[in-house]
């Protein structure tokens, strides 16, 4: 990058605050994520959404599993749970059932939610459990050194697929939609304001809602797949993403070097688990 010389002399100002600071445990910053990791961008889009919603922070709980994405829980000045690997959805389900007025959000990685935790995901979606699941999909297990996961694209190089992945990966948009999610969107970390809108919509929507964020993992995915630096991963998104709201989830596969779909795929109303439970309880005279 060409080095230019600053034209204006900056001033030094102590005590200034980043606009998102009220949501962050600033004593833990800077965070541990690598240079160019998309997780900080995904987190900040989520916090702009919380700003926009204007909810009482005490009415929000964020649950994470294990992984680089799982670290989100530790940086939020909110009630958060950093749970065991794969289990944020069961924890979130318990929270929601015990305290139905809480806004419960799961923020976790593709491996956590769809490998070890895949069973929990499909059943929470099937039941239309009233929680929002946010998945940062970096196409691999970032934290443990870049192993192949259920979303790793065909042909991709990982530490456990050194000759290229030959397995069929999950299309998360299609999986969420077929399992019963009532709101499904996918964006990339380049889409800050669209992501904010998707979070606002998903969090305000009744029932099981799902937002997938494609995010660069330069340390373990980008470099190994000769995508270059994080900057090049973002340029790849810019060149390959196609916005198509209401597209058929089946068409949302992610294939290396091919265009991929982003947008809002599902937005529908359906009775939630709690509503059905209450109806049944009344029916049998217990409610």
């Amino acid at each position, binding site marked *: *990058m060409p*080095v230019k010389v600053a034209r204006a002399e*900056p001033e030094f*100002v102590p005590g200034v*605050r980043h606009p998102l600071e009220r949501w*962050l445990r*600033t004593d833990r910053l800077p965070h541990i994520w690598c240079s160019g*990791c998309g997780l900080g961008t995904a987190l900040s889009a989520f916090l702009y959404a919380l700003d926009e919603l204007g909810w009482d922070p005490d009415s929000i709980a964020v649950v994470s599993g294990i992984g680089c994405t799982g670290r989100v829980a530790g940086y939020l000045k909110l009630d958060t749970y950093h749970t065991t690997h794969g289990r944020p959805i069961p924890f979130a389900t318990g929270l929601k059932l015990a305290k139905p007025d809480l806004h419960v959000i799961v923020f976790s990685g593709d491996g956590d939610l769809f490998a070890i935790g895949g069973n929990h995901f499909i059943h929470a979606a099937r039941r239309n459990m009233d929680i929002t699941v946010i998945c940062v999909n970096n196409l691999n297990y970032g934290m443990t050194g870049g192993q192949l996961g259920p979303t790793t694209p065909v042909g991709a190089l990982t530490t456990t697929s050194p000759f290229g992945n030959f397995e069929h990966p999950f299309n998360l948009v299609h999986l969420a939609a077929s399992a019963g999610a009532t709101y499904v969107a996918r964006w990339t970390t380049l889409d800050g304001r669209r992501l904010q809108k998707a979070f606002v919509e998903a969090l305000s929507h009744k029932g099981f809602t799902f937002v997938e964020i494609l995010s660069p993992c330069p340390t373990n995915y980008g470099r190994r797949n000769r995508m270059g630096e994080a900057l090049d991963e973002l340029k790849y998104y810019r060149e390959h993403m196609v916005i198509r709201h209401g597209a058929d989830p089946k068409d949302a596969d992610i294939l290396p070097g091919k265009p991929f779909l982003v947008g809002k795929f599902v937005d529908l109303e359906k009775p939630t688990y709690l509503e059905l439970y209450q109806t049944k309880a009344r029916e049998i005279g217990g409610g």
Partner: protein
Amino acid sequence: MSELQERAAKLWKVPKGYIYVLEEFCKGCGFCVEFCPKKVLAQASHFNDKGYHPPEVVDPEACVLCGFCERICPDFAIWVEEEGKGDVS
């Protein structure tokens, strides 16, 4: 008081407000520099304590205060403020 508040940020005046850079938080990814639609920023030649090149403002007059640099930064290291209005993002 949090560490963030104790740290001093660099501030540049631009036509509609201000750009702040908290150099210690920057990890030099270059996102803000690359994706600024007006090419207001460039990587500085100096290093921060962690050995990264933080951004600096090289064309203040061109800034339209769109806030994209703030949105894309993964490290809460750059943000903008509208004159008289606080945060614009």
